[in-house]
């Protein structure tokens, strides 16, 4: 597995994602700086949680226009895997790599808790390992996780089986309780819950592991 994690100024889950990936992949994970525009050949690029560039504009809006995003878009075009978690998900929607947008939580407050998430789609390289698991427990920690998408797009997402994760008890007002979505080619996943915080039994859940092990199996090396 040739995996890398991007660090934007203000990313704060980059290390956590590297640690989780390395634990499951068993290989070292490359760090990418936000100003890099030429990337080596990679199987997977992770966009971590945090507050890229402070997120003083819309969450992810500035990061979506950073040099590295061009390279990530090309990687995705080539069919490479891209995983955006929390702020990473926000960046992917801002960059147009995923449909919809993430706006302020319906309750207006930041919310950090362990939530139950339904794996809505197990036929993807990200979620195949969840086959048979109806619900999993993953932590969320965000202020802007309220997924919005128009009626037409929602129908498309649902119809094409691109809703990967769905909250059991919607914590942020997301349309259709959507917690994570796949791109049309199913090689880009964005999700608000933090699978990287759920790979170690000491932290209360290991339900994030199958996501990483699915990818490892899909890449096959």
């Amino acid at each position, binding site marked *: 597995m040739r995996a890398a994690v991007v660090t934007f100024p203000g990313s704060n*889950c980059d290390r956590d994602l590297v*640690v989780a990936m390395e634990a499951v992949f068993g290989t070292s994970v490359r760090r990418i700086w936000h100003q890099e525009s030429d990337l080596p050949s990679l199987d997977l690029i992770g966009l971590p949680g945090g507050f890229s560039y402070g997120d003083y504009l819309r969450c992810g809006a500035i990061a979506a226009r950073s040099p590295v995003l061009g390279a990530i878009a090309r990687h995705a075009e080539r069919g490479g895997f891209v995983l955006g978690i929390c702020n990473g998900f926000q960046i992917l929607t801002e960059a147009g790599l995923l449909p919809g947008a993430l706006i302020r939580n319906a309750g207006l407050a930041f919310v950090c808790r362990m939530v139950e998430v339904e794996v809505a789609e197990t036929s993807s390289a990200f979620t195949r390992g969840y086959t048979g698991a109806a619900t999993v427990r993953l*932590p969320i920690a965000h202020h802007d996780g309220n997924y919005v998408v128009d009626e037409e797009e929602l129908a498309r997402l649902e119809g094409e089986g691109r809703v990967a994760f769905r909250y059991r008890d919607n914590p942020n007002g997301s349309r259709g309780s959507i917690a994570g979505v796949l791109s049309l080619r199913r090689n880009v996943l964005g999700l608000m819950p933090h699978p990287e915080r759920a790979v170690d039994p000491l932290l209360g859940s290991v339900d994030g592991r199958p996501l990483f092990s699915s990818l490892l199996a899909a890449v096959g090396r």
Partner: protein
Amino acid sequence: MSPLEITPELLAEHRLTAEEYARIVEILGRAPNLAELGIFSVMWSEHCSYKSSKRHLAKFPTEAPWVVCGPGENAGIVDIGDGQVAVFKMESHNHPSFIEPYQGAATGVGGILRDVFTMGARPVALLDPLRFGDPAHPRTRHLVGGVVAGIGGYGNCVGVPTVGGETTFHRAYNGNILVNVMCVGVAEADRVFYARAAGVGNPVLYVGAKTGRDGIHGATMASAEFSEASEARRPTVQVGDPFTEKLLIEACLELMQKDCVVAIQDMGAAGLTSSSFEMAARGGCGIELDLDRVPLRETGMTPYEILLSESQERMLVVLRAGHEDEAYAIFAKWGLDCAVVGRVTDTGRMVVRWRHSVAADLPVQPVSGAAPVYDRPWVEAPRPIPEPADDRIAPVDHGTALLRLLSCPDLASKRWIWEQYDHMVMADTVQGPGGDAAVVRVHGTRKGLALTTDCTPRYCQAHPRTGGMQAVAETWRNLTAVGARPLAITNCLNFGNPERPVIMGQLVGCIEGMAEACRALDFPVVSGNVSLYNETDGQAILPTPNVGGVGLIEDLSGMVGIAWPHDDLSLLLIGESTGWLGCSLYLRELCGREDGAPPPVDLAAERRNGDFVRKRIRAGEVLACHDLSDGGLLVAVAEMMLASRSGVHLAIPDGLPSVAGWLFGEDQARYLVVVDAARVATFVAAAADAGVQARVIGVTGGDGLTLVGHPPISRNSLCEAREGWLPAFMGEGSS
């Protein structure tokens, strides 16, 4: 500079007395100019100089074999084995938070983070003891909402988990809330940095945000009483930028890997002035500053303003000469301003240049070392007289009493607050908020740091010495209850106006009580902060010496929490119960009385019981543990039961002098432990051998709390009582 006309108004504005001014003239051999007067004003403020508390703070024990650095530096340091150290401190941001709750609390978080990473430690946890006024007071809800949002807004963005704290309410804080923040970091023992300038000719580097006019006189404001007029001081509250702080953390820690940092200090209270004076004073050298090189955010700033600005997210670094380019490259990478603003000298003087002239020229040692120290008069608080327990029975049954206690503001769940804090970022939070102590894994190891903050202000009010002892003892107990070895404490001593002998008596009493407990428990003080003048219009807060404790768990597999794993386990009470209801929450919430004496603290029993419990936890015999504190036995049982999503059958022993005292008394040095039924006999025998009282009081299982001989209370109703109050309070009306 033009000669300065010294008027009583000018001195009052700078919070300097006529005697203090005379001393300044004596030190200088001349009258100061305005910039110099400003420097003395902040350096000799209560906040920076500890002039009222210094002689009493000396009573704290500060040494132990595992203490690497005690009070006097930016933060305290203890050894946690394997060449690693924990670095921690607590500070207050009370006044700014009352004036502007969001920014006040946010910048409080920013300031304490800088105190920790300036020593080379990566911050790994934040904890916030908060004290608000009466929930019925019209401002309380606004203050709670703003403070919580401010702490979350800053901590969540910098990516340091907020894992614990306390939130309580009392009318004594109506006009003066307390917002204290504790930060804990981890560093390599051989990579610790101090704020001691050295090396003549070494450049002094300014790093981080630009300097503006915000926060001028923050330190002096923190050293004055409050009044209605304080509202007009809103412009003196600083504004935080957690994004810049995050960059500053990463850039400074990266620079510290390079062997080119001689000394480093954050620009906190009193900004550039105190950081440069403190670094020069600790290093016994001088510094020349060139204010024309300071990155400014506003035009037309005077030397006075540049020197006293408390703009946030700024650091001062003494570099090894010749390494400037290395430093520039790192700060450029992180997009931060950085400029050489001065040099280290051997003159012992701080010479400040501005526009080709000298704006200030002061001897370093007298300004930072010869601040006045006051032995303020104080009166010892009388010991309150305990009353017989039997006239303190509330006219309600025990079940109703329990429900009322669980839903009272002090005991109600604070989930509404801590769910707004990212308590899991960094992926090392093993026990988050809601238990006795939070536990944060030391990254990449099997070790854990147990962290807690504690204080029971109503005990401190009733008898300061006992209250001070109790705050330390409860901290120690909370660390013990998760299986940690308590290492050391930091503290934040929040009191009223020390110029009043009664208040000074509270401060002295609390300090002496704390010191006694620290000695008895081998639990030294390694850092701290004093916040005085917490009064509004002559109304003082309850004495509130918040204690922050750090303990070590060598192997996290030996840790316990408050939730028991399954049914049919035995619940044991460790420690002696006399049914002490004086100063209890039961008395306050159900009888409407705040009188009586606080529970006595028997430090020998505290140590004996705690050492026994910790040993049994580490031997793997204890499946869950909870310390007993506010609300007593029944509240603790209910909390464990709710965390376990289980039930419990509880026996009431025969022949008790007072059943209410047994259920709700707040005797100290007690724990609840859950043990496998088959192991109870050996457990009780081991307790007897250790001289520790242990008795079986119940068995786990079922779906509610059943007091034998009383109707059961469903888990749902307990849960609703505990979880309902705060969201309902914060949701009422519009904000």
